[in-house]
């Protein structure tokens, strides 16, 4: 005996206990009322006026709102991104400019410091050597002669 046949036999055993609902008066009446209920509901729902146009309009309105919101979101995020990027570029440029200015200032300071020392020494030399009182001039000339010797 195959498995399918055995299963069918089992089912037959079960169905032997099966009592048709129609035999039971109360059950039969309940099932009859149930059928009538389903029939009436189905007929009413089947012949009800359709509101396709309204639904479509509502859907299209929702669709439009959805699209608008989506566009606003996309535009907002795009412009935000662009603004942020521009801001970063500005900051970088400003920092670079600042750095360059500082470097330039440092260079100038260094150059100024070098020039100032040399100039100072030269000035001191020339001032010391040249600002000699005229009364001492002959002595100074003598000193120069001694040095040459």
């Amino acid at each position, binding site marked *: 005996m195959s498995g399918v046949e055995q299963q069918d036999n089992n089912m037959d055993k079960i169905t032997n206990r099966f009592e048709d609902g129609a035999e039971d008066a109360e*059950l039969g009446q309940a099932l009859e009322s*149930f059928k009538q*209920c389903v029939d009436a509901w*189905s007929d009413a729902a089947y012949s009800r006026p359709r509101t396709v146009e309204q639904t479509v309009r509502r859907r299209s309105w929702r669709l439009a709102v959805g699209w608008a919101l989506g566009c606003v979101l996309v535009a907002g995020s795009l412009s935000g991104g662009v603004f942020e990027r521009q801001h970063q570029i500005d900051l970088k440029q400003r920092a670079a400019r600042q750095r360059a200015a500082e470097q330039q200032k440092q260079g100038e300071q260094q150059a100024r410091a070098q020039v100032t020392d040399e100039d100072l020494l030269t000035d001191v030399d020339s001032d010391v050597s040249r600002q000699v009182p005229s009364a001492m001039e002959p002595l100074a000339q003598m000193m120069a002669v001694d040095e040459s010797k």
Partner: protein
Amino acid sequence: MRILEAAVNSGAVRASTWVMAAGTALKAMTMPTAGDIAAEEFSRVVERHRPQIFRFLLSSTRDVDLAETLTQECFLKAHRNWSSFRGESSAMTWLMRIAINLQKDHWRNRRMQFWRTTRTNSVDLDEASEWLPSGESSVEQQLLARERVKQVWTAVKGLSERQRTVFLLRYVEEQELSEIATATGLSEGTVKAHLSRAVGRVRLELGGKR
């Protein structure tokens, strides 16, 4: 003379051939094609069985919109496969089988989309029980009948998918067990067993013995 006769005859033959050809063409224009016949036949099937399919789906889902959608899908699928329908079973049984499979697929997909499980358009059992024609019975009888119908709806709600399908096909669509077996793809014995359990559940809900 012979030449003249031959010319006349050949002209007559040509004329008659032309008339026949024209007649055939005219016939071809007016005679419906196989496709036209099939389309007409299908539209008759739709007209005849659509309310029944809708009723079954409505009673099974308790959702008017869903029942309408599934009915549309059922006939769309049937239209696509109409050429493969060999008439081994009745058109109604064939359509019912498509409807049952569509419904099964729908619930399976819904289970997959777990976030949609909480949202359902199925009407309340009280609302479903209100659709009872008043007839000539008294108010008390109507109330009693409504209460019974509500109990049956409650029992139907608690049935498994297969039991519900079998029960509705038997007691709402009033189909024979063999038809139910063909539509559901089950053996008649299995159909009887499912029906037995479903009726037992209804009986229990009504307060009787199982």
